[in-house]
């Protein structure tokens, strides 16, 4: 053991460059895995927050049975509860606005009271989205500062920076406006937000809250049930726990995101392992001669294995420690960068890297364990051959090209995948997609030869003539499994890129198409909350009439709204509990198709719109059709404010604004008759050809003075704004790709550097017989290009199939998507592969080119 330790240390110290390179591989592996996974919880939390707050949903609301405020310490108790992601308490009191302070003014409606709400800024922002039109959000340190809504600011004549007075139990409070939120659109008092501590002081109830809002960290239904039960048991009878109805679509979206993000974590792990394994395999192969010589001198196999394992352990340990540090720094830097983007586009703050002891543990096991494994397995193989055989100089023996076990496993998986991918069952086809990816990884070593031959021929005919392309191709085929493992990291990164690209392209194309069709008018009048129609205050039909009367306007079309529920029962049943809530939108069958268009999944515009005008007919959107399982021709029973009404489904079609909601379209006639609703909640209009747009805008703005809830905007602008948010929402994803791309680059550099190092003497010989420095450099470049092409080709194939499977299974998660081929992403992947090939070749190529021939010839292989 002592000899082994001694030898191990001497090897590490004696071959510094080698030691550094291999330890670096461990650092890379650990860095990739740890950094990625430290980022994911924050990305996940941000994602969950975005989705949940967009739905305005809280997992549990806790109040005291008496309705009174209760100690804030209950919140601290709840946060300690495992499974609770965030707890946020608020203290709210209505405050009257005395007319003496706020005298009535012309053109303003002064509210008689507002709600003064104390919130914990950090926690509150994790539960709800507080968008700001101007200024900033509250911080814990704020005193005498408030955030108000634009509508309150308008009513009280306040602007950013101005201050106002409110009567409180502890006297008159002066508050300065530091932030302005969008106008309030829902019923209830206007809110004045201040920090919780300040509210406690003003109300004379320090450290108390009127309610606690809780969000969980899981979407698993049974786990949520038990969390609720746990909270109830923990709090006792004194408290009430309100829980929301689980919106299926919300959970579907969250689940989809969870899967995607966890996939990133797994892929990062695989890539880390690949980098480490690949490097060590070569190191041990290099040691062959030494091992033979030591055995000839009398060292036994156990001692030599111990030498390699000690080296592996020390390097694994050092690499893991450095990797942890680098990974953490990377995660922190990335999140800092990310939060800038998130804050400016989505008004969301991201947390720092999350490092759980579990993650550190897994990382350490992975880093050190992988290194030990990577050093031990090839060492045992090397020790199995006789010392004499080991001593014989290997003239770079070419590995056997006979397909091994991995190949046949790959073939079997491929067969399974090709059968499973098109299976209608989501589980089976997703397994098929995964199997296809795995099959390619297993087949990669066998595919190295044919694929590099293909690309090598191409290279030989283009950039790498003079036989250099042929040399590069041969070099990769020399160690097919090493080439395959290197290419595999590129494969994984690009597969993920292309698969996600497929989904994103499909979503984008889908929504872009709908968005354009939905907003086909020249102008829109937008209510405060588009598509959450219930909270919008509509306009009487006279607004539309007056706009129609403007000389520049050619056409006006409106949407009207009523809420109802939908029963799939063919006859008017008695017991209708558990039916689907549905937004019923009233359209004008004549004018609607001219400014907007539904995308029909079944049925068509020519028949569907006239049908709405004749009798109780309706069009369902995709969400409604998939939740109720109704088809065109079916009868649907609407539970309306005025009783049960039977409609016939004539078509299934979607528009952009309501795509996520369960929606039924009926004629405005029927909406009036069955629901008694005549208010317009959304208006679109077109101008006459050549009409004066500025005058028309002015005319409409004048009319809107009586309808301040509507905002006039050009459709083009609204479209552009929507697209911008749409794209920025995916910003985080793009960054994740960069994180994934980096390791594949590192793996490539590592393999090339090792290849150059190993072949020092061979490269010296090439130079001796007349190869120029440029040709040697080109050789390394060609190798890099071949490796990355190999990875790209397989990655594109894998990503294409997995993406296709994901898109076709999106409906099981609540979306129906048409597959769009991700041309842009495919091209981007190829560009990345080529760029990485060139980049990776730079340093190893330079090293190879700068080699002194004579020294290279003397190099101890």
């Amino acid at each position, binding site marked *: 053991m002592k000899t082994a330790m001694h030898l191990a240390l001497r090897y590490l110290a004696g071959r510094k460059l080698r030691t550094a390179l291999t330890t670096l591989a461990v650092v890379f592996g650990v860095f990739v895995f740890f950094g990625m996974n430290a980022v994911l919880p924050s990305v996940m939390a941000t994602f969950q927050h975005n989705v949940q707050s967009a739905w305005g949903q809280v997992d549990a609301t806790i109040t005291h049975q008496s309705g009174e405020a209760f100690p804030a310490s209950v919140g601290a108790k709840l946060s300690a509860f495992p499974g609770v992601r965030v707890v946020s308490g608020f203290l709210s009191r209505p405050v009257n606005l005395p007319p003496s302070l706020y005298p009535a003014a012309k053109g303003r409606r002064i509210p008689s009271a507002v709600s003064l709400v104390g919130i914990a800024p950090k926690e509150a922002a994790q539960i709800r989205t507080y968008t700001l039109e101007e200024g900033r959000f509250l911080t814990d340190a704020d005193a005498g500062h408030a955030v108000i809504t634009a509508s309150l600011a308008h009513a009280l004549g306040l602007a950013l920076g101005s201050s106002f007075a409110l009567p409180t139990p502890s006297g008159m409070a002066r508050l300065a406006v530091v932030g302005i939120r969008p106008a309030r659109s829902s019923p209830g008092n206007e809110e004045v937000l201040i920090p919780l501590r300040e509210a406690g002081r003003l109300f004379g109830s320090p450290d108390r809250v009127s309610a606690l809002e809780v969000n969980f960290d899981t979407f698993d239904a049974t786990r949520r049930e038990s969390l609720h039960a746990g909270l109830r048991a923990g709090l006792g009878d004194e408290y009430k726990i309100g829980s929301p109805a689980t919106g299926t679509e919300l959970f579907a979206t969250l689940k989809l995101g969870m899967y995607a993000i966890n996939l990133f974590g797994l892929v990062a792990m695989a890539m880390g392992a690949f980098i480490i394994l690949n490097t060590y395999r070569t190191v041990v192969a290099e040691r062959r001669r030494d091992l033979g010589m030591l055995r000839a001198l009398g060292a036994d196999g156990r001692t030599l294995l111990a030498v390699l394992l000690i080296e592996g352990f020390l390097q694994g340990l050092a690499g893991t420690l450095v990797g942890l540090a680098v990974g953490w720094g990377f995660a922190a830097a990335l999140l800092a960068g990310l939060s800038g983007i998130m804050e400016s586009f989505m008004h969301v703050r991201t947390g720092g890297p999350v490092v759980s002891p579990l993650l550190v543990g897994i990382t350490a096991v992975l880093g050190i364990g992988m290194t030990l494994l990577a050093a031990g397995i090839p060492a045992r193989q090397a020790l199995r051959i006789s010392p004499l055989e080991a001593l014989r100089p290997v003239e770079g023996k070419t590995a056997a090209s006979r397909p091994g076990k991995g190949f046949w496993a790959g073939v079997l998986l491929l067969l399974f995948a090709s059968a499973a991918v098109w299976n209608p069952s989501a589980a089976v086809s997703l397994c098929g997609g995964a199997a296809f990816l795995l099959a390619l990884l297993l087949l990669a070593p066998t595919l190295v030869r044919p694929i590099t031959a293909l690309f090598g021929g191409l290279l030989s005919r283009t950039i790498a003539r003079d036989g250099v392309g042929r*040399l590069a191709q041969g070099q990769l085929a020399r160690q097919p499994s090493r080439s395959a493992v290197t290419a595999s990291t590129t494969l994984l990164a690009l597969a993920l890129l292309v698969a996600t690209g497929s989904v994103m392209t499909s979503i984008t194309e889908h929504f872009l198409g709908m968005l354009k069709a939905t907003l086909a008018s020249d102008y829109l009048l937008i209510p405060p909350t588009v598509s959450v129609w219930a909270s919008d205050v509509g306009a009487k039909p006279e607004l539309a009439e007056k706009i129609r009367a403007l000389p520049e306007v050619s056409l006006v079309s409106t949407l009207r709204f009523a809420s109802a529920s939908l029963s799939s029962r063919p006859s008017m049943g008695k017991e209708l509990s558990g039916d689907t809530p549905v937004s019923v939108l009233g359209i004008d069958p004549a004018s609607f198709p001219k400014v907007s268009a539904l995308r029909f999944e079944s049925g068509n515009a020519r028949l569907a719109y006239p049908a709405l005008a004749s009798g109780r007919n309706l069009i369902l959107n995709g969400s409604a059709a998939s939740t109720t399982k109704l088809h065109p021709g079916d009868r649907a029973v609407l539970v309306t404010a005025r009783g049960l009404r039977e409609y016939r489904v004539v078509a299934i079609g979607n528009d952009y604004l309501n795509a996520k909601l369960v929606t039924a379209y009926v004629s405005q006639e029927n909406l009036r008759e069955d629901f008694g609703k005549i208010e317009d909640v959304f208006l679109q209009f077109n101008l006459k050809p050549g009409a004066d747009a500025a005058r028309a805008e002015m005319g409409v703005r004048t009319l809107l003075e009586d309808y301040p809830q509507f905002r006039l905007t050009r459709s083009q602008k609204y479209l552009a704004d929507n697209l911008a948010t749409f794209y920025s929402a995916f910003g985080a994803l793009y960054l994740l790709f960069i994180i994934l791309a980096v390791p594949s680059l590192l793996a490539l550099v590592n393999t090339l550097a090792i290849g150059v190092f190993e072949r020092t003497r061979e490269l010296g010989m090439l*130079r001796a*017989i007349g190869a120029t420095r440029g040709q040697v450099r080109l050789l390394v470049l060609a190798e890099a290009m071949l490796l990355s092409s190999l990875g790209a080709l397989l990655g594109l194939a894998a990503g294409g199939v997995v993406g296709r499977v994901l898109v076709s299974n999106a409906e099981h998660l609540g979306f129906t998507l048409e597959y769009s081929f991700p041309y842009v992403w495919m091209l981007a992947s190829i560009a990345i592969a080529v760029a990485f090939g060139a980049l990776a070749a730079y340093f190893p190529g330079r090293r190879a080119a700068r080699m002194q021939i004579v020294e290279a010839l003397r190099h101890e292989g």
Partner: protein
Amino acid sequence: MGILQIDELSKRYGEGETAVVALDRVSVKIERGEFVAVMGPSGCGKSTLLHLAGGLDRPTSGRVLIEGTDLSGLSDGKVAAIRRRKIGFVFQFFNLIPILGAEENAALPLTLDGVSPAAAREKARHWLAKVGLANRGGNRPDQLSGGQQQRVAVARALVAEPALVLADEPTGNLDSRASEELAALLRQVAAEWGRSVLMVTHDARIAAYADRILFLKDGRVVDETRLSAHGNDEGRLVRERMEKL
């Protein structure tokens, strides 16, 4: 004008105290078709001389002329071109590219020079046949014996029709029979095919195949002998001479 002319060539490695003078003002001239062997104890500077003659390294002082062209003034790329076209190399081991077949290996200097692969292989085939490997063009190095591998290396050294062939202990890794066969082949290269050959060896029997033998010691040419016949007697003669030094 000689094929290879070396004037006052010196090579010093390192600086100051630890400096090693590997070659000390050596002058050699080799004519067309001449077969010259260099002998001497290990570390006397034989490889250094060969490397400098082939432009693989730059001398500390002195100059090397290949067919009248002075290497010292040339750029790296120009020297590489001279190596491809005017010089052939044979080394002791690790002589061939393991992933290429014999024919591709032999064709390398031509393909590197931009000759079309088909034409290059045609020539390689020709030279492989001449060194006695007519049917081995498709074999990779690991499928050939050591002697056969060195013959491929000789074919490669000749494929570009160079004026000069440099060989550094080409028999160092071969058994005695294969060694003698290779020496005979190099003799043929010079005598029949008109190339100049400069070969380093420390085997007296191999050196005896040469026309002329240079004896090197501590970086200097200390003796020189011309052989008129090539056989066992000469071998003994050379060995005696070596031992005397």
